[in-house]
């Protein structure tokens, strides 16, 4: 979910813009050598993920995959997600330049939860591992939904209802993303363990 231009208030745009700039600059410090290819690849997967529609009842949602990006890249998830969001602004006009900071913070900051829970998962086996992998995919989505609601709520009392509605809309995505990431992490551990190990 991208926040459109013109919706957020000036203080929120300023604070989120500064926070995103700091995060992205910090993340780019680690984008060198092998991490360059990996960051660019995960950035494009985050971009392509928005075309993968998964059914939920009569409707469908697209994958967000910020937990996966965070699990693989750690802090390099900040520049990866920023670059993907920037390309979405340019190619599809989703979001915008002034809200790019807010959208980056909303999507990229919770990605670190994916990194933490994935690391917890690989140290465990069986059901605890599956639970950690589920959380590595699901919690970043929940974190993003919460940040989205906070950013909107701070932009004016009038946006409080929109914030609540958007948060509730993300709850089914929380479960879908958790299940998809659980299977994805187990698949990657079997098929290409090195890919996630070097994160």
């Amino acid at each position: 979910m991208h926040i459109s231009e013109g919706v957020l208030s000036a203080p929120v745009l300023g604070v989120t813009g500064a926070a995103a700039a700091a995060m992205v600059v910090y993340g780019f410090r680690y984008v060198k050598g092998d991490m360059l290819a990996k960051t660019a690849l995960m950035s494009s997967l985050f971009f392509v993920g928005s075309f993968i529609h998964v059914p939920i009842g009569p409707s469908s949602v697209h994958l967000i995959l910020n937990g996966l990006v965070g699990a693989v890249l750690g802090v390099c998830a900040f520049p990866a997600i920023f670059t993907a969001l920037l390309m979405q602004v340019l190619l599809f006009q989703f979001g915008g330049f002034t809200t790019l900071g807010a959208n980056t913070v909303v999507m990229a900051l919770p990605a670190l939860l994916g990194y933490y829970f994935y690391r917890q998962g690989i140290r465990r086996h069986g059901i605890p591992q599956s639970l950690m992998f589920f959380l590595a995919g699901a919690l970043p989505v929940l974190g993003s939904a919460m940040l989205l609601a906070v950013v909107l709520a701070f932009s004016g009392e009038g946006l409080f209802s929109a914030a609540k509605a958007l948060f509730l809309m993300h709850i089914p995505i929380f479960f879908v993303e958790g299940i998809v990431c659980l299977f994805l992490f187990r698949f990657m551990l079997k098929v290409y363990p090195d890919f996630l190990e070097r994160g």
Partner: protein
Amino acid sequence: MRFSPSVSIAAAVLYSLMTAFLTQVHPLDGLFALFVLISAHGRWRVVFLRMLKLNIFIVFICLTVLLFHGDRGHALLIFFRANLITAVNVALFTGYTADEFYYGFHALRLPDRFTVTLFFMVKYTEILGKEYDRMKEALKVRNFMPKTNIFTYKTYAYLAGMLLVRSMDRAVRLSQAMRLRGFSGRLYPFNYISFGRSDIAVIGMLIIQSLFTFGGIV
């Protein structure tokens, strides 16, 4: 009329910054938006359809402000600000390819680490996109019908996983091939998109717009 990608990006960023912080929208604040919409002659249908799609979220936000809080002024402010900026972005950017945006950022002399990441991201998106289309076809051939069940979610998880596995091998080969040819974190593109008269017109319009918005002419 087409503008060079670098000028389009810079103009869109500046107009967004000018408009997003407005607390009142005056009709003359839309002068630049009107200019780029007129210059998008020949692409009006695409621009109109995309604006309709993008307005779903904007109208949703405005309706919640209007219906649940009764704040008509705030709803209208959001609606006009959002539509002015979105119209400029759509009119300026439709028709460009991802590669052209990379050249645009390169011409704006942004840091190498950013432009190189963007370049690789654009190249990998092409690879991933083609792989994704092939896998989708393969699923269709096997009569896969997506439903709300664990089997469907597992299939999508494996699809994303296979996308990563196949693309990572290619990505590593591409970066190794570039390193072998002396790549040291900087790219030297040949395909510059030249700066033309239309770019001067768009810069001129942006200056006029800033005079209206900040210069007290409005």
